[in-house]
């Protein structure tokens, strides 16, 4: 880093400082720094900048923050670690560079983790997303026993072999911030790095939202509407895929079709949280989303971005 940061901007002082530091680090490496995708999704991996860009031969480097919605993990703001809405910091690099582990460790150093003091470990974690038809091998990255990131070499996405393979890093931002700030409750995180009356905590920003969305996720969401949303998204996705298909030339609408796939996935997650999906139905919903993801991946490979 060129000049010393003011205290309130430092990664160990504020949640936003942590995000800014990671963005700077990966921007400096050559990633395009994107803004969050404007569709609700369960994880940063669903962002088309990861799912779709991981497919096809074209090199790609991107980093972005993605709000992740996990309706089932809502705890009405009462659990110090679990949130139904949280932030992931996502890095995707295709092809995976040979020094990706070192790049990752340097990013930890950039946010203030001293490797002479802390015990960083790569612990086996095979990643699989049944809804995306994707899998990869990698690790959970532990810092002093705390899982702070996931590190994955994508092998398959949307049912297609990745060639070349991308490296994906996912930082759990709240956890990492709790670690570097030394707080035990996520709502106590210092968000803006100021003290006294100026200080804004994570709780100031998100506690009410966690309470309200927990009510929505578990109690208020209209399941009939959600089922309709799921079916509409599924239908629209298929419709777009057919409409954009051109025999012998590029597909015209892989990205809008994929948006519908993400929407279907989120509707399923909400239905699941409402507890209206029987065990036997669950698998069939997952399969339906996977079929959409596969079809979108296929369409993407027929676009310029997919290398066609």
């Amino acid at each position: 880093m060129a000049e010393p940061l003011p205290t309130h901007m430092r990664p160990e002082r504020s949640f936003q400082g942590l995000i800014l530091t990671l963005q700077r680090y990966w921007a400096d490496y050559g990633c395009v720094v994107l803004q969050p995708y404007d569709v609700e999704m369960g994880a940063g991996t669903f962002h088309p900048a990861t799912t779709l860009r991981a497919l096809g031969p074209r090199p790609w480097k991107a980093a972005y923050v993605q709000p992740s919605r996990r309706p089932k993990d809502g705890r009405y703001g009462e659990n110090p670690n679990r949130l139904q809405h949280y932030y992931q910091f996502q890095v995707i690099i295709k092809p995976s560079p040979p020094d990706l582990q070192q790049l990752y460790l340097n990013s930890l150093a950039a946010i203030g983790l001293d490797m002479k003091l802390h015990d960083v470990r790569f612990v086996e974690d095979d990643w699989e997303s049944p809804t995306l038809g994707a899998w990869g091998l990698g690790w959970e990255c532990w810092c002093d026993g705390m899982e702070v990131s996931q590190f994955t070499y994508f092998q398959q996405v949307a049912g297609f072999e990745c060639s070349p393979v991308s490296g994906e890093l996912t930082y759990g931002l709240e956890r990492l911030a709790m670690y570097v700030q030394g707080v035990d409750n996520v709502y106590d995180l210092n968000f803006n790095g100021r003290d006294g009356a100026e200080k804004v905590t994570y709780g100031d920003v998100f506690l009410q939202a966690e309470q309200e969305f927990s009510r929505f996720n578990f109690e208020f969401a209209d399941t009939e509407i959600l089922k309709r949303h799921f079916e509409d998204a599924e239908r629209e996705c298929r419709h777009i895929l057919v409409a954009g298909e051109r025999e012998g030339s590029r597909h015209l609408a892989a990205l809008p079709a994929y948006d519908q796939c993400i929407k279907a996935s989120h509707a399923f997650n909400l239905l699941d949280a409402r507890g209206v999906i029987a065990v036997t139905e669950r698998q069939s919903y997952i399969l339906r989303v996977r079929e959409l993801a596969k079809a979108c991946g296929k369409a993407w490979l027929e676009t310029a971005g997919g290398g066609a």
Partner: protein
Amino acid sequence: MPDLLLELFSEEIPARMQRRAAEDLRKLVTDALVEAGLVYEGAKAFATPRRLALTVHGVPARSPDRSEERKGPRVGAPAGAIDGFLKAAGLASIDEAKVVADKKGDFYVAVTKKDGRPAPEVIAEIVPQIIRTFPWPKSMRWGAASAKPGSLAWVRPLHSILCTFGAETEDPEVVAFAVDGIAAGNVTRGHRFMAPDAITVKRFDDYMPKLEKAKVVLDADRRKDIILHAARDQALALGLELVEDEALLEEVAGLVEWPVVLTGTFEREFLDIPPEVIRTTIRVNQKCFVLRDPKTGGLANRFVLVANIEASDDGKAIVAGNGRVIRARLSDARHFWETDRKALPAYRDTDLKPLDQRLKKLRDQNIVFHEKLGTQGERVDRIRELARGIAPLVGADTEKAARAAELAKADLVSEMVGEFPELQGLMGRYYATAQGEDASVAAAVEDHYKPVGPNDRVPTDPVAIAVALADKLDTLTGFWAIDEKPTGSKDPYALRRAALGVIRIALDNRLRLPLTPFMAANIADHNVELRMADAKEVLVSARKLEEAGITKRGFGVDVLEKILGEKAAAEFARTSAQAAWERVQDLLAFFADRLKVQLREQGARHDLVDAVFALGGQDDLLLVVRRVEALGAFLDTDDGKNLLAGSKRAANILRDEEKKSGTKFDGAVDAALLKEPEEKALAAAIDAAMPEASAAVGREDFAGAMAALAGLRAPVDAFFDKVRVNDADPAVRANRLKLLNRIREATLAVADFSKVGG
């Protein structure tokens, strides 16, 4: 002789794969060396999180010269055959082949000489091949190379290969090869954080110490040793004891190259959580050990972690960080522990106790146990009814057994078991106790899963025995009914374990328990249900056909319904019972097999088990074992051995005669036709021994039955000594054969002697 050193340096290898991978590397390389004629003196392989290493010492510098002979066609064979032979053997003309004579004439033989090659050349061929086809349980591609098909796959990205070969007295050479652009060299790296620089290595002798200096302990067993001793010492210094855990030790030794053991603390108040929960939380999520306080016998509020670095603050930050995670985990566990003992919001207004609410939830959720075997709720009902039936036979209170069976699966919907499936049963016991269930009911909730493995405890309390047997018999009969039996190495529902569990419970507790009735009822129920489901499907299709206008009204559904309702029901009952009975017999045979395995491990002869099961109708495991024991003891005596020999001789003669004449000699012996004193004596002895033996068997006094048969030994011996079976008078001869048959019948009171070996 020279030594080979090989190291494959990669990103972090999963701990659970390391030991196997090192062993695979050793075997694959040394087998290939031997195959190439390089017979070595010794080899040892190692694994750390970042490397597999192999040292092979005493490898010859060259592989030996070899000559291979290939047999060709006969001299004077057609030209086509000769040409084919020349091509296959790589000869230019038939003059290069030599002629060898054998019984049938002269043949061509091609002799090809293969010169030995320098060992490094051989190694440079062998190793890349092994790397490319290494049997990792799961491997991956990476980097720019993965854009092309067929790129190297490894467990995680492979960074470098070190491969040297040479004698102690000289500088070894780097074996020249490359795999997907990774050229073998003589350079490795030390610890990721403490000694990341390159290290140049000559051979194993300096490789290991140089790594050690670079903060890498190469040998996993040494890492385990270091961890174990440091953990014990630190516990001792605190006046505590390490709760040892071999599987965890193996795992953590695979997560570090330089083990540093540290001890941390958590708040005493967490010790209110059941100790098994604390241990599981800390072990599964944090891979840390726990400590026991010898004064109380309970857990101490400490944990032992294994770090991978010597931190500049002596590990204070590491201990603090781990402590924070452990506290968060224990808070979660305490939350589950408290929530699970409270009412469920949805059932708050019922008068059900907390665990009964979970049972209700389990039923209400219709969680499928197996597609063809219904829901968990239905399974609970079946186990409860089985337990009721078994209870009186094992001395258990019927109502307690039923209650325990009902609660046995309720903890599956508890928060704690949702988080830690391995705590199933145990949590059920805690929650049952918490709501004031009878102590033996609570204990049975935990113990009904037991014994889980060969070293696991077998339940001894009658209530637990009843539920444990019911659980296992329900599983076995269910999967037998739908024909999902274990095959070869595939046993996804752990049915072998279930059968072995039944056997151990019956034998360890000396239980008298005929299995057939319990198996038959359950299998028959499943069978009828499945077939009714088929019938329902037929009906539904018929309705659809009608709705679609494909079938005409009048011929349609109502007729079919009537037929299926009346006649089919009876037919179902008949064929189902038949099919069910066959399945029961098959399941009994499965038990016999498991019992054989079990008894063989205890040193019993499996032919004796066969001899007893061959009697038929043997469904009481304890009686089978008692018979086997008595038979074994009897056959160890002279009387037993001789009677066995005599009875086998009788059986052989009979078999031959029955074959020759096509008749059986199973009628009564005619006393009037008995001439010789020895045959009269034998007939009398059999007449006396048979009822005595049967009576003893009736009393389940198998030793007594054997003793009764022992009396036959002398008359049988005397008979064969003095009496000729093959008398000139056919009536006398037939009568003597009938007498031989009586010997066989007599011995069948205790076992089928024809199945006994030797």
